[in-house]
């Protein structure tokens, strides 16, 4: 087995036992990047030099902290001091922040090694990473297919063994959906669990930082580092963080699992349904109580999301005006033209569409009918979950209605593409934690199972995910990629 194939916890063990050095680990991953990056195209920026330097530093010190020497990638939405942070946009093609996002700073403090910044849909708007202003990322399982999005680069990089783990963000499914498409673990914690400081905002009331990893244990380990209250983010919760690894005992005996009937309806592929049903049987076998429930407002989640998120985005995108950073049109002779031209040139199609949609939903004549209405429905959606969680520990569903689609297949009709988020969006609406884990293959493409937890109870969710993983082998499947 190659070093780059090892999980974070395996790498940790070998490093602690001094069987390998940090530099060896980093070189192995950099070698892998060299080999497969041309095919996968997950990185916008590769920080090879500094990665090696940091690895050597860790080796020299001889004392390894939490994730010393472990190569990681960050979705290019995380601000990294001194390292270009583009958010997948022409607007920020040359932007170099002078500050670090909190999540990255915490990883850095534990000697995690940044090997690069990963591709994404521009400003995290999209479900295929085809909205990146720079290039398209390919699904390692089938290079003709999308990796999902918006954190497609992060999912693909982990699936292809280019990094040991990666961070992404999830506003409506942007971690879970690509994790599902790429056959890796993708976890979105509870809203407020991980600081949003230094993460370029898309929809502030929904955005949450999360993790891509090879297995559930790795996600738990990384959660232990990045979770927790941050005084720099007023919406980060001052709620104690447990040791997530302590939940991973492999047992779901007596656990109460709900599956919402609305999540198995029209539009969900039979193969996907079959895989989830099989998984639910597995849980029963393992001693869990599995029952059908109803989340009656599920069908309203997607339209609600496509009003709330663009409305917030329209304001979050407004700061990109060509004055202090970012793309600027130098031809404009007055400031209004400068704003309007810089933004017209700097933003891509989907970003423009959502700015337009969000701006419209907030205009005085339509605020009540669209935005306010959506906020009220959002309450109803959250209430649905609250009710189910009175009686159940976790909720299980498919992550996406289908497996990864072909590149270019869904360009053109935004509404069809938005349907990809139909099973993930409700979780963001309610601010709950959700994780996608591999639970099968169909025609050589991974299927993801979504496990939803109670607010701030990521532990139980991870426990359920881990138990499944312990009793199946889906997470060990790796894409061929035509290279060894």
């Amino acid at each position, binding site marked *: 087995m190659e070093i780059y194939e090892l999980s974070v916890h395996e790498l940790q063990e070998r490093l602690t036992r001094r069987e390998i050095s940090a530099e060896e680990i980093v070189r192995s991953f950099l070698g892998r990047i060299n080999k497969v990056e041309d095919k996968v195209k997950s990185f916008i920026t590769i920080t090879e030099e500094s990665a090696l330097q940091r690895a050597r530093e860790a080796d020299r010190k001889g004392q390894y902290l939490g994730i010393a020497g472990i190569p990681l990638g960050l979705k290019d939405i995380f601000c990294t001091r001194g390292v270009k942070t583009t958010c997948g946009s022409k607007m920020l093609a*040359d*932007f*170099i922040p*002078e500050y670090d996002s909190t999540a990255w700073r915490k990883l850095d403090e534990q000697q995690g090694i940044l090997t690069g910044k990963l591709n994404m849909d521009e400003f995290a708007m999209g479900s295929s990473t085809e909205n990146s202003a720079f290039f398209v990322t390919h699904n390692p399982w089938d290079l003709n297919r999308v990796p999902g999005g918006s954190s497609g680069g992060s999912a693909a990089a982990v699936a292809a063994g280019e990094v040991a783990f990666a961070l992404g963000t999830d506003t409506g499914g942007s971690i879970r959906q690509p994790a599902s498409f790429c056959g890796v673990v993708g976890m979105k914690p509870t*809203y*407020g669990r991980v600081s949003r400081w230094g993460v370029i905002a898309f929809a502030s*009331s929904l955005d949450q930082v999360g993790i891509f990893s090879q297995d559930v244990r790795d996600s738990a380990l990384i959660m232990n580092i990045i979770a927790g209250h941050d005084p720099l983010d*007023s919406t980060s919760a*001052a709620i104690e963080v447990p040791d997530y690894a302590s939940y991973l005992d492999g047992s779901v005996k007596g656990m109460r699992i709900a599956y919402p009937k609305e999540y198995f309806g029209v539009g969900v592929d039979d193969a996907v349904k079959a895989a989830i049903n099989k998984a639910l049987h597995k849980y029963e076998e393992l001693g869990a109580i599995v029952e059908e429930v109803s989340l009656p*407002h599920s069908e*309203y989640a997607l*339209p*609600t999301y*496509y*009003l709330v998120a663009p409305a917030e985005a*329209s304001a979050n995108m*407004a700061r990109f*005006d*060509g*004055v*202090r*950073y*970012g*793309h*600027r049109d*130098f031809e*404009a*002779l*007055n*400031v*209004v*033209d*400068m*704003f*309007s*031209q810089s*933004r*017209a040139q700097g*933003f891509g199609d989907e970003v*423009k*569409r959502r*700015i*337009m*949609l969000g*701006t*419209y939903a907030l*205009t005085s004549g339509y605020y009540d009918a*669209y935005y*306010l*209405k*959506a*906020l*009220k*429905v*959002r*309450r*109803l959606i959250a209430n649905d979950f609250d009710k189910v969680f009175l009686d159940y520990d976790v909720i299980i569903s498919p992550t996406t209605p289908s497996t990864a689609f072909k590149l270019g297949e869904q360009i053109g009709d*935004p*509404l069809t593409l*938005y349907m990809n988020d139909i099973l993930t969006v409700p979780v963001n609406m309610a601010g709950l934690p959700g994780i996608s884990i591999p639970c099968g293959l169909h025609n050589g493409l991974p299927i993801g199972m979504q496990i939803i937890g109670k607010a701030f109870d990521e532990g139980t969710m991870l426990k359920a995910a881990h138990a499944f993983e312990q009793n199946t082998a889906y997470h060990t499947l790796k894409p061929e990629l035509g290279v060894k």
Partner: protein
Amino acid sequence: MALTIKEVEHVAMLARMNLSEDEKQRFTEQLSSILNYAGVLNTLDTDGVEPLTHILPAFNVFRTDTARNSMPREEILKNAPLAEEGQYKVPKIM
């Protein structure tokens, strides 16, 4: 709910985003179809439902009033497309 090109132009003006004729046309159709889809929300009775603006039940998150050093000016201006005399430079307002 069908939007008109005029409305799209107005929204683009509010959003300070110049659109090409093609974009105006396309967005008019696409936004209409998305809003039409969102129309399903109107079938729900939401009378008396409190809008959900903050998912966390948190209040009064404050910092204490202490002034600290600001960022060095060269750093705050470093990413500026155009700067002069320690300030951001923009074309005329009028």
